[in-house]
């Protein structure tokens, strides 16, 4: 039985965002958190025995907390996972001296490296580069603002310095991500950043206080992390329901194929090509999502039609699509996809869907024959396939080097 349900990243516009993350396997997260916390507490206990009463004990506990926090991330749609790491790091920025800070930062990253030993090396290394740069920039941001202010602990200066530290840290993280693994910073899902920045500032103030005000000590960061954990829980629920829905649609897309009505993988390939063409033609994200659903379900109508030998006539062109459109239009969520699927629709998305479907037929599911399919499309009369769509196919094929330039 095949389980190739992970769509290629470009095929899903909803974006199961592919940023670097160590939180890939949720099953082992708890175990890892336990190991990191245990090691951190052991080190803290050792530090406490060697030099009781110093600032180091609390900082070591916070370092372990930063390592644990690395394993938890806010994952809103369309944004690379945002790890809790920075919320804890800013607490340490506020409480530690320069030497202490970088020692704890290095220790925390080493601790993370110790428990995250699975998966390919390159993306894991990218995560450490991101955190090291982001962590250093957070320190730089905090230092600049507090130095500009001079000695003393003003309430607004501390709050601004913490905010600048977090913003610089997150920007640095984004920049390294983009430089190393080409994950472009997204404008979506930034409410997660807002939550993290607000909570991070509070956690830092809770631990160390401002001026002569009493602080909450280690209680502070943990108590003020609670709202952030609430946000994390909500984002996880939303993500899992989204995944279930996407998987349901993808699974249903396979029914006509399992019933022998279409070539295996046809729906997924048409969806993938359709989304690429749609993106090439500048369709917006929402339309791309609707197009993808329409492409996945475009053979579903076939299931509801009687066998040709039973009803005594062949299935007309467009009949399958129209039956499918009729079904999709029954639900509000799926209706826009039904409109794209309908055979009499002239929208650009519909043109893309029709072209993608016929291309998959012509190439028999083998994309390396895209050039061949393109020639067939090109030789047909122009009114059958939208010239804009044909041009987009050509660009996609050329980019993949599937069409001989000389032949054009």
């Amino acid at each position, binding site marked *: 039985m095949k389980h190739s349900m992970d769509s290629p990243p470009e095929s899903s516009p909803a974006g199961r965002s592919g940023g670097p993350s160590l939180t890939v396997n949720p099953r082992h997260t708890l175990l890892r958190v336990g190991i990191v916390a245990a090691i951190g507490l052991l080190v803290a206990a050792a530090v406490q025995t060697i030099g009781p009463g110093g600032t180091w004990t609390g900082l070591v506990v916070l370092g372990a907390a930063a390592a644990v926090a690395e394993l938890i991330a806010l994952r809103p749609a369309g944004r690379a996972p945002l790890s809790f790491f920075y919320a804890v790091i800013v607490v340490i920025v506020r409480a530690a001296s320069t030497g202490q800070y970088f020692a704890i930062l290095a220790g925390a990253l080493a601790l993370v490296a110790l428990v995250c030993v699975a998966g390919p090396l390159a993306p894991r290394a990218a995560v450490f580069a991101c955190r090291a740069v982001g962590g250093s920039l957070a320190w730089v941001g905090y230092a600049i603002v507090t130095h500009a202010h001079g000695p003393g602990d003003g309430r607004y200066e501390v709050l601004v310095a913490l905010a600048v530290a977090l913003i610089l840290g997150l920007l640095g993280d984004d920049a390294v991500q983009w430089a190393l693994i080409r994950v472009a910073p997204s404008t979506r899902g930034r409410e997660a950043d807002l939550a993290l920045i*607000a909570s991070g500032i509070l956690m830092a103030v809770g631990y160390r206080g401002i001026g002569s005000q009493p602080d909450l000590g280690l209680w502070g960061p943990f108590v003020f992390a609670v709202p952030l954990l609430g946000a994390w829980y909500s984002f996880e629920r939303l993500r899992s329901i989204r995944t279930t829905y996407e998987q349901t649609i993808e*699974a249903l897309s396979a*029914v006509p194929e399992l019933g022998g009505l279409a070539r295996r993988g046809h729906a997924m390939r048409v969806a993938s090509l359709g989304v690429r063409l749609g993106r090439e033609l500048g369709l917006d994200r929402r339309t791309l999502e609707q197009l993808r659903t329409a492409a996945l379900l475009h053979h579903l109508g076939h299931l509801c039609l009687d066998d040709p030998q039973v009803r005594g006539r062949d299935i007309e062109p467009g009949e399958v699509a129209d039956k499918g459109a009729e079904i999709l239009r029954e639900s509000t969520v799926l209706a826009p996809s039904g409109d794209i699927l309908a055979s009499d629709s002239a929208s650009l998305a519909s043109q893309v869907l029709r072209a993608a479907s016929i291309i998959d037929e012509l190439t028999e599911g083998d994309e390396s024959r895209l050039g061949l399919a393109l020639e067939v499309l090109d030789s047909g009369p122009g009114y059958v396939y939208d010239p804009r769509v044909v041009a987009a196919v050509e660009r996609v094929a050329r980019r993949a080097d599937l069409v001989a330039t000389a032949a054009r």
Partner: protein
Amino acid sequence: MTEQSRSTTVFCIALAGLSAALAVALEIRGASVDGAAVLLLGGLFLLAENESVTLPNNVSWSPSFMLAMAAVVVFRAHGALLGPLYVGMFGGAYLPQIRRRAWRKVLFNAGNFGLSTFATALVYHGFSVGFTGTVGGQILAGIAGALAFAAVNTALIGAIMMLSSHARVGDVVREGWTAGWQIVPFALLGVFLGRLYLEYGAVMVPLFVVPIFIARQTFASFLEFRASHEAAVSILIGALEAKDAYTAGHAERVAKYAHYIGLELNLTPARLERLRFAALMHDVGKLVVPNHLLNKPGRLTPAEFELVRRHEPVSVEILTRIDFLAPVAPSATSEHTHYRPVADEHGQPIEPHIVAVADAYDAMTSTRSYRRALTQQVAFEELRRNAAVQFHPRVVEALISALRRRGEVHGAGHEEDVHAFAVPPPVAGLGSAGLGDLLPESGEVTSR
């Protein structure tokens, strides 16, 4: 205006009047509060109430109590009771109710929140004498305050419900206390928010409130997404199923029965959700079976039967592809749902057995191309006769008692849709899932 409605009105006015009188009395005795603090905390309280989320179990949930608790901590000395009272009264201005001009509800909410928050302040300050200032003492006092809030709130809501709809006291109290415990975590957050406010001023409040509102907003979109997409999937399945007039609505009904059984067996909400979804999808493989075979009134040839049998592996493959359903994918096979009394039950999910029983019950109580609907009594007897042989006995009994309790009757004479038959279906034969068994060669079952 009925007498019932009039007494409700009087109660609401009296409640709001009592809060207002309390405020006036406190003012006369020299209480005074910082107006800006009342506006900020009251405004946020209002915002939180307007942004409440209704959970699937109809409990409305909002972080507003956190702000009431913060107000209790923030106002001290002369305003210790007046401040929380004002902040609570703010909460009544629930915008949709004002827009609908539901003044009674507005008055009731203002009075209810005002008095509940006032009670919280009374208990909190009474409790924290002795350990003022310590974090632990404030937390304890906060929990006591939260319970006071829940008690007053439950009493007042109970009173209005009994006035307006004759609700039972027991139900009201039970619901109130469940909701009451849920606000305890918010009491703790409120205590810390209040401390922050006292130590650093209002600038800290947004830092605290923003992540909570983002969490709430995201949770609301989760609930919305779930509702709309669950509907989309069930409509999709329903529409596909409609190709076979005999089994139209089958998946939806099996999902309903499975849900009843799950409730009866005390499954957790997460498992109930998965069970409903799995039941909805259990027959998805049937879609690959050509229509004319599904609707064939008589006996299937062995070749046709093979074609029909193909639906089970397809169903399993489809279910396996959905991570959420993969653990219960065997729901789709008759082989795996067959109950074996000797099998070790530990670690084996019961969901496949639930779907099997729900499926068989619906198959027996609806008319199929090969048989008319049986009566509920016959279906029950048939399930019981095969319990421990084919069906899980506990699941069978759960279905029967769930249906009896709800007084639902299905089967012959109680079907939702009455079919017009091209070929009248036979009266006998039990079958399963609408797929038609291989009937005996001799054709001892005849059409009527």
